[in-house]
């Protein structure tokens, strides 16, 4: 199973998903992020999905849960870089990613977290 690395820059945790996600990897990421949030007290999480070719209902649910878990640590999650084809497919699938904020790219996501958006 591949692991997704988490980088801490300032008060923000950065996650860039560069692998074809299997269910176990997404669950592992969820656990790793919760640990990092507790250990670092980060106030924001940016998840870059630029390289992600599909988001199915399982991956979508995990992303929503990451947003909810972050909130329990007083942190905000922003998903950035969603491909147009992924957005269209997610909508048709019936997934809304409720409660998770999205931004066009990492820069805009960071601005959102810093309250400048």
């Amino acid at each position, binding site marked *: 199973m591949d692991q997704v690395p988490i980088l801490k820059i300032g008060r923000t945790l950065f996650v860039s998903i560069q692998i074809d996600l299997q269910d*176990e990897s997404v669950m592992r990421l969820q656990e790793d992020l919760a640990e990092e949030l507790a250990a670092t007290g980060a106030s924001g999480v940016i998840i870059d999905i630029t390289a992600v*070719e*599909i988001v199915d209902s399982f991956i979508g649910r995990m992303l929503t849960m990451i947003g909810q878990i972050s909130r329990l640590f007083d942190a905000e999650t922003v998903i950035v870089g969603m*491909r*147009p084809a*992924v957005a269209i497919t997610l909508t*048709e699938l019936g997934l809304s990613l409720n409660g998770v904020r999205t931004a066009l790219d990492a820069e805009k996501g960071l601005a959102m977290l810093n309250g400048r958006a």
Partner: protein
Amino acid sequence: MDELPIRSGDDVVRIRQHVRNAAATTGLSLVDQTKLVTAASELARNTLIYGGGGLVRVEVVKSATGRAGVRLAFVDKGPGIANIDLALKDGWTSGTGLGLGLSGSRRLVDEFELTSRPGSGTSVVVVKWSR
């Protein structure tokens, strides 16, 4: 026609890649490729979790009007589905999921056929046509 096993999470990832290649070679648009691969991911996971594993047959097909398409047949020998109408409802799940796997993947493809009987497994055949 290619036949791929569905026995683990790694297999699900391999199936996505295989279906992506088949869809691209067949000339499906990027959005249609993404829809088909997403449906394949949902259905492969269902085969794995609810059907106890199985296989998928991936085939490039031609319609009567000459359009090319990709046909996927997911087959398992699991417990089967007692109430198919209920299983196809948005939001209904027998497990812990969102209940969008079957109903959602049906919306993502052009043809969808589910055959199942309790005790004799489940087969889901889907087709996505190029435009």
